[in-house]
């Protein structure tokens, strides 16, 4: 290995708040060669972001380096005074943050913000030269009409374009190292892909090294040379990317991979989960930090701390800290696979039918101004959901899937079209009937805490729907709630606590319990696992499946995550700009997508396996979704479709079933070739 560009040695970081001090990083050592790409993965709170921030001395208030060194260019950045750090930041190390919405200054033009590092670090450049270079940089990051965009403000750009601006800003001084902290987490799949491609291209062009921090194993698998897996403030395992994915040695890495819905044998089986929660880092745990959640833990693991040591076979290329590693010859299949769950019952009769559902929102300038136009959120969707099945609705943000869910749940009135429950239209019911009908459809949200009154105890929150609907006596209600808490795996004592006292996964359990209090027929779940870490996500998905089987529930499962939907759904619908472009049995839609959009989406997804992408003919989606206020004529996808013809602009494609009766597509030129088998 050549002389490293960056060497982090035994770095320790504490974050002090009024109540406690968290030992966020506890002896991290990492090296990065010039031009190399290192990925840091781990679940929330593992310290991956703190590692990235401490390189540039950007720790949050209360954060301080308590030990170790960060050697860069012969200087220790951890001990460097402010002027030295300011000279390095934005100059030889550039940084890109997660949220392009909030990480740009809303009151400064894009040009001024991109030119700023030049003004700071290249005093020899005139203002005009800096501006010209900034414009060149914008062109380089793929910003259309860079000259005009220089004068735009961040809010006038889409999320993907803002992230391009943030990248331009980080790279305008041509740094030797780029630190990207979850750069694509806030973006849609297709935008995510474009941004990652962009970073790859620029890295090659500028010969930069990169640290990519992410929770997304799919992103890490395809974009870096080496990976460090972090757990509870320590590096658990470090290896070249192929070695890690092919042969994880640490039991945590193994369990993490096994929790991925992509790795589940098929949609009938339960996902592997990691029980419990990461340790509290305010107290330094003794022994291996993963021991309390590890099925292989022995007394040794609980008392002695394993050191990060070289792999016995592969040497320094692969290091891990585990006393009982995955055996060297183990194949992935040897992961403890949970017992297969019985196959789902054959789907029943139609529970919900949507008929040409339309929802439009007026676009208004202000209280006194007139209507400026219409946003077509849902543009005529017809579908059927059968009793006992999971209907998975996928699509990118703004495609109308959430609005559709809200209409089905009765929270929005459709502009046109009908929703029928067992043939009845709730809009034509009497008030009393509609009230009674409400209990049959319940919602589960992405952020269950935000959906619960923070000043109500869990017991009251769960009991409220029963009180409103007048179900049973108080004692009956309390008994029912206790049973529900058992069912979702929460202690009965939870009723006396407040929502904020629960972890993310527990809150989603609460959200599910709340949805189930009135024993509904249909649960509309809107991105219920999107905010969760992989291991917790697996727990919730398993729970949802289990309860479905026990109670004969029907789910309308809305998500942007194709792998999660594939794992859970029996039937899949794909939405694009308010239209249902394709729907059918999950296996069929994934194995042989008929719509170019579905195909493009599947090709865009980052597979959590460095080998999977090879040899696959993937054509990822390009461009951005047009505004729903001005949807394209004819087929709404035509502006991004590689196969678009004239007819696509003039005529809206009719629904056809070229493959099999249940597999519908709305396209003039449906695809015929099946997609090659792959993980998603």
């Amino acid at each position, binding site marked *: 290995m050549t002389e490293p560009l960056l060497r982090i040695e035994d770095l320790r970081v504490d974050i002090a708040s009024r109540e406690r001090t968290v030992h966020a990083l506890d002896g991290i050592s990492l090296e990065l060669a010039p031009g190399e790409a290192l990925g840091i993965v781990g679940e929330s709170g593992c310290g991956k972001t703190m590692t990235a921030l401490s390189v540039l001395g950007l720790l949050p208030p209360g954060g301080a380096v308590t030990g170790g060194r960060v050697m860069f260019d012969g200087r220790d950045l951890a001990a460097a005074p402010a002027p030295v750090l300011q000279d390095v*930041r934005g100059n030889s190390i550039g940084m890109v943050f997660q949220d392009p919405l909030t990480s*740009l*200054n809303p009151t*400064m033009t894009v040009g001024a913000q991109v030119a700023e590092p030049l003004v*700071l670090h290249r005093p020899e450049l005139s203002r005009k030269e800096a501006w010209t270079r900034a414009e060149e940089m914008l062109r380089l990051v793929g910003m259309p009409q860079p000259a005009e965009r220089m004068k735009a403000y961040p809010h006038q750009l889409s999320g993907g374009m803002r992230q391009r601006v943030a990248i331009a800003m980080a790279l305008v001084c041509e740094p030797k190292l780029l630190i990207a902290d979850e750069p694509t987490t806030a973006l849609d799949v297709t935008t995510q892909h474009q941004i990652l491609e962009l970073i790859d291209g620029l890295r090659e062009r500028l010969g930069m090294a990169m640290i990519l921090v992410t929770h997304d194993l799919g992103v890490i698998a395809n974009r870096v040379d080496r990976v460090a897996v972090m757990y509870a403030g320590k590096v658990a395992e470090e290896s070249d990317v192929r070695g890690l994915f092919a042969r994880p040695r640490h039991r945590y890495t193994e369990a993490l991979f096994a929790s991925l819905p992509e790795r589940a044998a098929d949609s009938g089986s339960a996902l592997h989960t990691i029980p419990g929660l990461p340790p509290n880092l305010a107290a330094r745990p003794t022994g291996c930090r993963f021991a309390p959640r590890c099925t292989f833990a022995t007394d040794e693991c609980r008392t002695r701390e394993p050191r990060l040591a070289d792999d016995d076979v592969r040497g320094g290329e692969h290091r891990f800290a585990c006393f009982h590693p995955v055996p060297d010859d183990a194949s992935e299949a040897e992961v403890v696979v949970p017992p297969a769950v019985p196959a789902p019952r054959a789907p029943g009769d139609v529970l919900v039918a949507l008929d040409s559902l339309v929802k439009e929102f007026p676009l208004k*300038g202000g209280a006194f101004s007139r209507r400026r136009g219409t946003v077509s959120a849902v543009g005529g969707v017809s579908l059927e959901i059968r009793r006992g099945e999971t209907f998975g609705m996928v699509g990118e943000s703004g495609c109308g899937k959430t609005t559709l869910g809200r209409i089905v749940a009765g929270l929005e009135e459709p502009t046109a079209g009908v929703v029928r429950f067992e043939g009845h239209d709730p809009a034509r019911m009497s008030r009393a009937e509609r009230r009674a009908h409400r209990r049959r459809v319940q919602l589960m949200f992405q952020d269950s805490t935000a959906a619960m009154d923070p000043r109500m105890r869990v017991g009251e929150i769960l009991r409220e729907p029963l009180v409103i609907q007048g179900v049973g006596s108080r004692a009956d209600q309390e008994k029912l709630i206790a049973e529900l808490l058992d069912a979702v795996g929460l202690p009965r004592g939870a009723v006396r606590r407040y929502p904020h006292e629960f972890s993310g996964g527990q809150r989603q359990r609460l959200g599910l319990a709340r949805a189930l209090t009135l024993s509904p027929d249909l649960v509309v779940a809107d991105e219920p696992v999107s905010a969760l870490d992989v291991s917790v996500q697996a727990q919730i998905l398993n729970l949802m499946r289990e309860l479905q089987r026990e109670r004969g529930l029907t789910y309308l499962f809305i998500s942007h995550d194709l792998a999660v939907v594939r794992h859970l759904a029996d039937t899949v619908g794909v939405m694009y700009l308010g239209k249902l472009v394709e729907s059918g049995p999950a296996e069929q839609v994934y194995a042989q997508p008929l719509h170019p959009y579905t195909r493009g989406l599947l090709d865009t997804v980052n597979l959590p396996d460095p080998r999977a992408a090879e040899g696959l003919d993937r054509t990822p989606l390009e461009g951005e979704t047009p505004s729903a206020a001005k949807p394209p004529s004819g087929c709404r996808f035509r502006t991004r479709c590689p196969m678009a013809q004239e007819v696509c602009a003039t005529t809206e494609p009719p629904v056809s079933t070229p493959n099999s009766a249940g597999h519908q597509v709305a396209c003039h030129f449906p695809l015929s070739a099946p997609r090659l088998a792959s993980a998603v």
Partner: protein
Amino acid sequence: MTGFLVKRFLQALVVLFLVSVIVFTLLHLLPGGPARAILGPKGTPQQIEHFNHQQGYDRSLPEQYLMYLKRLFTGDLGESFKLNSPVFDLLKQRLPKTLLLTVLSTALAVIIAVPLGLLQAVRRGKASDYALTGLAFLLYATPVFFLGLIMIILFAQVLPILPAEAPQGESVGELLGDFTGLVLPVVTMAFGIVAMFSRYMRSAVLDNLTEEYVRTAMAKGQSSRRIMVRHVLRNALIPLATLLGLYLPTLFSGALVVESMFNYPGMGLLFWNAAQGSDFPVLLGVTLVVGVATVVGSLLTDILYAVLDPRIRSVA
């Protein structure tokens, strides 16, 4: 931007129309009507009837409102009973002076409060922050008249360097000519505003410091000073702009106390004297002006907003 201003101006006209309706209604809610107010308790019924007929008060309300509007457009706000002069002339003479007082003290306050708030935010939790916070609360809690008294005692009596009475000139120019006389009223009025604005500035800066764009700015390698000036200041001024506009009518009423204390010949003093002498047309005239000030204040807020925040500009 122009379209936005035109629209905002038309909205302001609507609000002003409503203000005129309210003021007109108030005029008719006077106990015993305007006639009783003018002629006093000794006026005979004949005199009252004659007065009402003469003034058109015996016609229907809508008719009267139209007349009132017509008079309003020609600048006729009625006559002061006590000063025997048209209310319009009185306002024309006094309004600029109050405006001078308000503008000077607000400008002084903003010039002091903005850096003060920034400083406090930067030194958050340190001794200087606590000291300034304590001082701000003390000033904020002190009534203006008490503050004025202290100022007079300190700077006009103990240390006689400034006059205790405001200049008595006829025009704004004359007032400005006697600048030393303006110091005490302006400073007294500014104190309370500084206390309030610096608190707002402090919390706005603190809010902005936790924003992610500040971290981005740091990641570019800027010094804290530059980040404050180039990034945080403008964003922190946005909430202050709202406050400034909404505070304008309150400033007018603050002027009332200050003017009567320092015998400053502005609208506040006029109002004070009119209130003591039940000079209703003057009171109503001033009320209308305060109504206008409120509308202008919110218009000012919107304009400042649009100047400071590009997001508002594109929505409007």
